[in-house]
């Protein structure tokens, strides 16, 4: 059974002209690491938060978001709490903002299992100490307040907290963005390590393509609330089939590339107040034709590469060099 299975998921907010998420299909298998990449506002955080049923006020949804086969969108509050306690957990971007500064680390770690799973305080504390050691901290941190730990240590605490309920799925929403570079590397290494050790599936939300390539088995590229392209990380980054993926890769700074200006993607993503008729990327796309402005492309398998799918009318031309500067 797939750990996370999102099918034709649409999410609309009040006072917007188009759905924020317009038919997202995404799966994460057991023990699989999947990266979800895209720019700010593409809907990637909203997608990951939906997995825990954390929807913005007034949101209307269609489709299914299944965790371990159960649809999150139709869950009763009680079921949702059980899901959040023991099936799926999220690691947030800024650990300093994500942990209540007035409560001890031990309280933060044990809170959810004590209050929901009815774990005895002693057992919960023992588990918390164990998890702290798993993320490279000591049980001494249990008595400390968040203000006494560094950002990197707090993100480890956050990861330990996510592991408390032994979840099948961990959602990491830009977990390294707020950290400095050396700490980022440690946290990424830790996440990879824990996946093999605890056997959890990991959905890694990031705007950092290099990070996505380094950590994930498969990648989803998201644009304007749709999946633009998906496939195994290596193949996708080697031979992007969607012009957006290609442009993103082109705008990523590289050490080995000659110095010079980075290729920025012209234009900006469509706002939520614009209705989208054709391909959402068409106005910024060098390959766009009349067809692109009229008809949204479906996410279809790539010929010869069954593991890959791309939503582009001209995916066969993407590799021709017209996009690569």
């Amino acid at each position, binding site marked *: 059974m797939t750990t996370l299975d999102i099918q034709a998921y649409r999410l609309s907010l009040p006072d917007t002209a188009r759905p924020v998420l317009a038919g997202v299909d995404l799966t994460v298998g057991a023990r699989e690491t999947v990266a979800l990449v895209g720019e700010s506002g593409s809907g990637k955080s909203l997608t990951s938060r939906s997995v825990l049923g954390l929807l913005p006020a007034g949101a209307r949804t269609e489709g299914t978001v299944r965790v371990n086969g159960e649809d999150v969108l139709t869950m009763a509050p009680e079921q949702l*709490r059980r899901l*959040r306690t023991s099936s799926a957990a999220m690691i947030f971007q800024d650990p300093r903002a*994500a942990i209540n500064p*007035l409560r001890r680390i031990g309280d933060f770690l044990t809170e959810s299992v004590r209050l929901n799973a009815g774990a005895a305080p002693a057992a919960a504390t023992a588990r918390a100490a164990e998890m702290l050691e798993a993320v490279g901290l000591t049980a001494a941190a249990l008595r400390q307040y968040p203000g006494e730990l560094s950002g990197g240590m707090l993100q480890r605490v956050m990861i330990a907290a996510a592991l408390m309920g032994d979840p099948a799925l961990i959602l990491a929403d830009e977990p390294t963005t707020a950290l400095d570079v050396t700490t980022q590397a440690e946290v990424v290494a830790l996440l990879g390590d824990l996946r093999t050790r605890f056997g959890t599936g990991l959905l890694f939300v990031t705007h950092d393509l290099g990070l996505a390539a380094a950590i994930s088995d498969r990648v989803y590229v998201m644009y304007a609330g749709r999946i633009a392209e998906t496939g195994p990380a290596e193949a996708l980054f080697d031979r992007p089939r969607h012009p957006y993926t290609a442009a993103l890769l082109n705008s990523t700074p590289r050490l080995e590339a000659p110095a010079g200006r980075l290729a920025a993607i012209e234009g900006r993503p469509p706002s939520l107040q614009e209705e989208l008729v054709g391909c959402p990327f068409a106005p910024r796309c060098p390959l766009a034709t009349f067809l692109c402005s009229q008809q949204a492309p479906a996410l279809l398998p790539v010929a010869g590469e069954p593991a890959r799918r791309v939503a582009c009318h001209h995916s066969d031309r993407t590799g021709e060099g017209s996009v690569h500067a």
Partner: protein
Amino acid sequence: MSFLRFAARRLAEMAATLFGASFVIFGAMYLAPGNPASFLLSGRSASPEALKAINAQYHLDDPFVLQYLRWTGQILHGDFGRSITYRTDVSRLLADRLPSTLLLVGMALVLVVALGLLLGWIGAVRGGAADSTILVSTTFALGTPSFVAAVLLQGLFAVKLGWFPTGGTGDGLGQMIWHLTLPAVALALYLIGMLARVTRAAMLEVLGQEHVTVARSRGVSDHKVIRRHVFRNALGTVLTTGGLIVSTLLVCTVLVESAFSVGGIGQLLELSTTTKDFPTVQAISLIMVGLFMTVNLVVDLLHPLVDPRVTLGPRRSAA
């Protein structure tokens, strides 16, 4: 800084402040127009001998500095002097009247804390119609000074409905509580509105913080998120306001006690001011200053318990 060192330092500061305050209080009374002798004689022309006798009895002819030093020296021995109007020891007067004032302020404080927190909580968490109702009613409460509330409550519940006495203090705890209910409500009304507003705003601010979303994302139930995170984190602001509330209660009790003829310190202050009863006014003023400082000290000492990021003592340089 250790708790003991902090407390010791603050006590020393308090002593210095009290000393300064005593000088200001004494000086103000000295400079104020009118003197007790003329009040005692209540406008009658007295023989120079009689005036002289009164002035000698209360040392009113001594130089200012001497009078001040005699007064502070007495206070250090626990003697606040003799009341000119009541012709008894001021400490006796205070001891008789302090319980009613403390009970009144205590009852009002309980009302303020219970209702203020409750209304603030409901307003922040429920929103909608409940919130609007609370906003409107707290606006009324905030617009009603305690002496106006006193007159209104007296008119409705004491005169018209007769549920409560119009004034007085009563004997025995039960009687006292019955007598002090209306004064306590009058005293509390404005502050309930204030605390409700402060609590509501503080809780709304915390509600928007990410750690609240995170707690929800971990399956903590809404009610527990509100209690353990939102309300808990709003407590710091509530505590700071609490200090202000107690101070305001002490000030407003003067007006309310007078309105309800409650035989407490506040009414005594009002009476002794109009009769130029210097020793009594001075003693009460000094006690008020002492109470204010004690309240502030208690708030400061409690703060680290409410917020671990607060440390006792002066700000540490770049920790």
